């Protein structure tokens, strides 16, 4: 379908224009190119403006979706972004990386019979347009005189900081790395989420009056207790899931075995793809195996191709149906030539005399009875050992919470896995005045869920601080 067909309701949404696979695997530029103005207006015109707005149920940060879609259909993009930003501090990010198919778009009435409205793509257009043309200042409440420390500048921390700043609180964000954004900067690749976009969103936060301190490792520089002593009235911990899990199989420390975190951090945050113009090196061999089946695994496999690998394999112990990655990411990976080895898991990494990876010994699996997650449990097939020859292995089987903050904070209750225990509705922890949200609480999840947790915590912190006022 082409733009211009405005009168009748089209059953289909507009396709997202993309860089062609053969082209894009040679660069790190963004894959999805974005709708143009005409397309957005027509696509937005497909919205039925349902009174009960089922789409809103699917949005963890409660954006008033029909309202912004209506404005976009009228080409009032300034109005549309203003509407979005009432609830979402990072729309250019969410328009790109939210799994809309499982959220807002899943509930779209149109989707029952046809394809749902492309809510995410419209959001992205509105956000990008504002970033290009300069942002409209947002309203900030009268200063309350309360100070809030936000630990970690990923999606949870940034959302919490933006909300609290708008409510008039003085917010300082502490970030351990040299640039704000957390996983948006070090984890998600440039070709899915350009870093310039993230930095523009961060700049918007600064305009709200949020102070961002980079190179500040809470737990080392100051502890949470010391932040309280230093006069912060409340603290939000959004330190994410930054601790990489390994398989704990022999040979895993061989040269050429990376955690996905390292592989992606070197590439995204440190720009190793521009080595030697940038100093940080990365080594990607001719044949790369990525262990795992989530979005991080897809990102790693696609990154490997762009870094020059001849073959990039996803090695996953279940089957295609169980891949936890977004469909769009799996499809993009397939289009780019990423290969899949399903029902397979390595038992040990093989290496040469110089300790460099030469391959993996693997076992084949079959699917048995469903496990706790409801997915069929992968069961190894005895005697099915075989060797895959590879020279780089990227372990992308998940991440846990970084313990630097919890280890150095008294009275902060954590789960056995090290996740901070926090109230699902308020983010309140076992420690008064200390709130937490995002991956550090939930375990590795999505950007938007972290943002939702940041939002809830911001509301709870505001209530907590307002309560303090009346005491």
């Amino acid at each position: 379908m082409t733009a211009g067909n405005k009168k009748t309701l089209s059953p289909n949404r507009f396709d997202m224009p993309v860089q062609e696979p053969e082209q894009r695997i040679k660069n790190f530029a963004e894959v999805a190119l974005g709708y143009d103005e005409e397309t957005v207006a027509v696509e937005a015109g497909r919205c039925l403006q349902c009174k009960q707005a089922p789409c809103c149920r699917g949005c963890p940060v409660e954006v008033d979706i029909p309202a912004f879609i209506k404005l976009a259909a009228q080409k009032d993009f300034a109005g549309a972004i203003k509407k979005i930003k009432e609830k979402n501090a990072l729309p250019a990010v969410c328009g790109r990386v939210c799994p809309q198919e499982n959220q807002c778009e899943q509930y779209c009435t149109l989707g029952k019979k046809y394809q749902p409205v492309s809510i995410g793509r419209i959001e992205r257009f509105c956000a990008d347009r504002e970033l290009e043309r300069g942002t409209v200042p947002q309203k900030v409440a009268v200063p309350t005189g309360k100070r809030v420390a936000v630990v970690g500048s990923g999606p949870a921390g940034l959302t919490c900081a933006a909300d609290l700043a708008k409510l008039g609180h003085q917010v300082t964000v502490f970030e351990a790395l040299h640039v704000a954004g957390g996983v948006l900067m070090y984890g998600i690749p440039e070709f899915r989420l350009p870093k310039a976009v993230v930095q523009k969103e961060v700049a918007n936060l600064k305009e709200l009056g949020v102070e961002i301190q980079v190179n500040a490792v809470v737990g080392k520089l100051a502890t949470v207790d010391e932040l309280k002593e230093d006069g912060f009235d409340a603290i939000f911990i959004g330190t994410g899931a930054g601790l990489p899990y390994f398989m704990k199989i022999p040979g895993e420390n061989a040269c050429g075995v990376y955690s996905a975190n390292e592989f992606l951090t070197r590439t995204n945050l440190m720009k190793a793809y521009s080595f030697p113009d940038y100093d940080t090196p990365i080594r990607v061999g001719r044949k790369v195996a990525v262990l795992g089946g989530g979005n991080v695994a897809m990102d790693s496999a696609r990154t490997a191709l762009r870094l020059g690998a001849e073959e990039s394999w996803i090695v996953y112990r279940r089957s295609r149906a169980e891949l936890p990655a977004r469909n769009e990411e799996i499809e993009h990976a397939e289009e780019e030539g990423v290969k899949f080895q399903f029902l397979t898991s390595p038992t040990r990494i093989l290496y040469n005399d110089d300790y460099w990876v030469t391959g993996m010994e693997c076992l084949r699996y079959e699917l048995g009875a469903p496990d706790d997650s409801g997915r069929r449990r992968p069961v190894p097939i005895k005697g099915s050992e075989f060797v895959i020859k590879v020279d780089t292995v990227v372990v992308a089987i998940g991440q846990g919470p970084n313990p630097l903050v919890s280890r150095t904070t008294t009275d902060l209750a954590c789960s056995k896995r090290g996740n901070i225990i926090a109230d699902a509705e308020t983010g309140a922890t076992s420690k008064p005045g200390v709130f937490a949200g995002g991956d550090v609480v939930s375990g590795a999840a999505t950007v938007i869920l972290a943002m939702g947790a940041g939002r809830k915590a911001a509301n709870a912190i505001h209530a907590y601080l307002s309560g303090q006022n009346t005491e």
Partner: protein
Amino acid sequence: MYRITRKQVLAPAISLFEIKAPEVAEKAKPGQFIILRVDSEGERIPLTIADFDRGKGTITCVFQEVGKTTRVLGTLNERDLIKDFVGPLGEPSRIEHYGHVVCVGGGVGVAPVYPIARALKETGNKVTGIIGARTGELVFWEDKMRDACSELRITTDDGSYVRKGFVTDVLKEVIEESNEVVLCIAIGPLPMMRAVCNLTREYNLKTVVSLNSIMVDGTGMCGSCRVTVGGETKFACVDGPEFDGHQVDFAEMARRAVIYRPQEKISLEKYLNESKGGHRCQGSCRGENNDRRE
């Protein structure tokens, strides 16, 4: 941005910086490290804290110009700015009353061993310091170490200063002279730490080493610095950098330390070609990008 408030050339290609970072200085303890990034295209390199001054709000780092990054660092002067500086990272040294402790500093390793020796002596330990260098002109901080230790011994590989021999030769003498040595702390190039551990193992003398693994974030996020200690994988950045030397898999460490050797060479050559009048490699440079004191 972080200002270099003092620069001192300690020996050929070995320099000292005092860097203004009051919050880091407030918290720094012996044994910890910092990570710095020279400019916005730079890599993050770890440097062990050689000293700190809470009053002045400065951290002292000593580095040897080896790869591109340390060479660029070497061209900076007092009042120049460093883009990023983060710390204090890693676990501090365990400073307790042990009795007689030997602190061995090999090469640039003298710098990080100095604050540990000082703290140990202040805690009432008898501290024997050993400085080892390839040649006499590379010996630095002799006076500071003499003050920090109860006694100080110096040796050079080529015998050009004080005596000829490796730190292990001197260490062996110290152990044999006194049967009261209960702890050895050894910091320096990997082969040196490995040799020290091989020696002290014979005497069943507990030995702590500080590992200079390749790192990116330095906060436990990437796993680049992983090292096998006692059969278990540890992250040097958050579990270390100090470990029981007798448990460290040095063979693995040595191989992991050279992962990027080809890229380090490319990076250094590019830098040397581009920098006007820069130092030309005479063949002794090993082109390490990510090394804090070898």
